């Protein structure tokens, strides 16, 4: 029953395989305004997971029959670069990427003032350039920043991180090994640092008590990301420089 390649032990003396504590993030890097053509763009990295997001719009909605006379229509597309994983990802939409695009769209829809731009479309493209678990979270954090960078009026930012369970321990920010061989992977997104959960997906077996504990841990994690997001935006608009993607 064991998967091929599973490490014997994934938590040793309270430390994870990459040396992290149970409730510690991988190094987080985030940058706003990294692309020239897009109205807004951002990079968000959890360790080796590298997500890039770009926003185009609001612009005239095509095809026309998809226009909404009252508000803007959001289209968020998540995709993984073919070289982002060990085994090449086949280009184009997969069932997984379609589902993730849908939940990212729903999460972002909570905060955008769509009524401000009737008949238009706002496109958000999330590209995973390098994957090492928690890609939808990195992608959604980047998308939220890119929307803010594009100057789209929003109620708040969306913040998100993953939590998991490995060897009966609850962990923050699921990394590659933990995604493949751990027991539980849960993605949580909230509005800003409020108690409003807009994205929630989980695979694996947990009790209700563990579920609530994991939600709380994710909210604490999101609160930290929220501060980083805000300072990244402040940084970007303090200098006015257009940083080329590093």
């Amino acid at each position: 029953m064991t998967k091929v390649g599973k490490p014997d032990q994934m938590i040793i003396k309270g430390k994870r395989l990459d040396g992290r504590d149970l409730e510690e993030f991988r190094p987080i890097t985030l940058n706003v305004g990294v692309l020239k053509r897009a109205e807004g763009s951002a990079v968000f990295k959890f360790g080796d997971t590298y997500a890039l997001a770009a926003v185009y719009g609001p612009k005239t909605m095509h095809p026309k029959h998809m226009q909404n006379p009252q508000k803007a229509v959001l289209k968020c597309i998540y995709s993984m670069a073919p070289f982002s994983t060990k085994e090449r990802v086949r280009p184009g939409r997969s069932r997984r990427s379609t589902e993730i695009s849908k939940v990212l769209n729903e999460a972002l829809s909570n905060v955008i003032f769509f009524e401000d731009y009737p008949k238009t479309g706002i496109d958000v493209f999330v590209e995973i350039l390098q994957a090492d678990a928690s890609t939808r979270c990195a992608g959604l954090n980047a998308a939220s920043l890119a929307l803010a960078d594009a100057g789209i009026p929003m109620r708040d930012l969306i913040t998100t991180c993953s939590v998991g369970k490995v060897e009966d321990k609850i962990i923050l920010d699921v990394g590659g090994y933990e995604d493949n061989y751990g027991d539980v992977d849960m993605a949580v997104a909230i509005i800003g640092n409020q108690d409003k959960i807009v994205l929630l997906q989980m695979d694996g077996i947990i009790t209700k008590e563990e579920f609530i504990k994991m939600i709380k841990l994710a909210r604490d994690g999101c609160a930290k990301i929220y501060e980083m997001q805000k300072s990244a935006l402040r940084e970007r608009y303090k200098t006015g420089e257009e940083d080329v993607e590093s």
Partner: protein
Amino acid sequence: MLKASENYVKKIVEEEMRIDNRRFDEFREIKIETDVIKNAEGSARVLMGNTHVLVGIKMSVASPFPDTPDEGMLIVNAELAPIASPTFEPGPPNEDSIELARVVDRGIRESHCIGLEKLCIEEGKEVWEVNIDIHVLDHDGNLIDAAALGAMAALLRTKIPRYENKRIVFGDYERQLPINDRPIAITVTKISDKLLIDPNLEEEDALDARITISTNEKGEICSLQKGGEGYFTTEELERAADLSILKGKELRNLLGN
């Protein structure tokens, strides 16, 4: 068909009522019928009020995934056929049918309810593949719960055909599909800040958010999927989990063993 408007549904729910007079925690009438398709290795029909879902299971032989060379495989697919609703279009699966299939898939997969390790024919070469196909025939809301229930009912009746000289002898069965658990998906819907279950189509059109919680026989959660353009608070999620565990038991009893 004349439908209750979104605002009407919301207003009624605000007053602690529902447009069809049900309680918030009350399912519509549920009927499950199994072995409805002769050529399928397992099948079930679920009626949940006017929602009608047919699930057929076909067994096939395939080569295993490299990281699980001695385990059978599970594939779930959902068709939102145009006969089921004026809003369903013919053509390739759209995001709704993909989400439906994937949420049902995760509930089954993560509960380990199918004994996939007992479906190996030759390690690294040939294993059984369990293909669950969900056909929605009438859409009146709550497709996820109806489809997941139908899939479980069909799995419990699925038989593995004989496999001889690299050929499947259809209609001639070797054994029952090994089943270890009976996960149940319950979707809790939030309308006007109230939580309710089994929304009909009018209620679904008025929802702020929904969360599907699959639970196993032990009452543990084995998968979660939030949908809709609204949010849940932690306290609402806690109540939704309680409701799903409770209602999951109720629906499981309809399945028998």
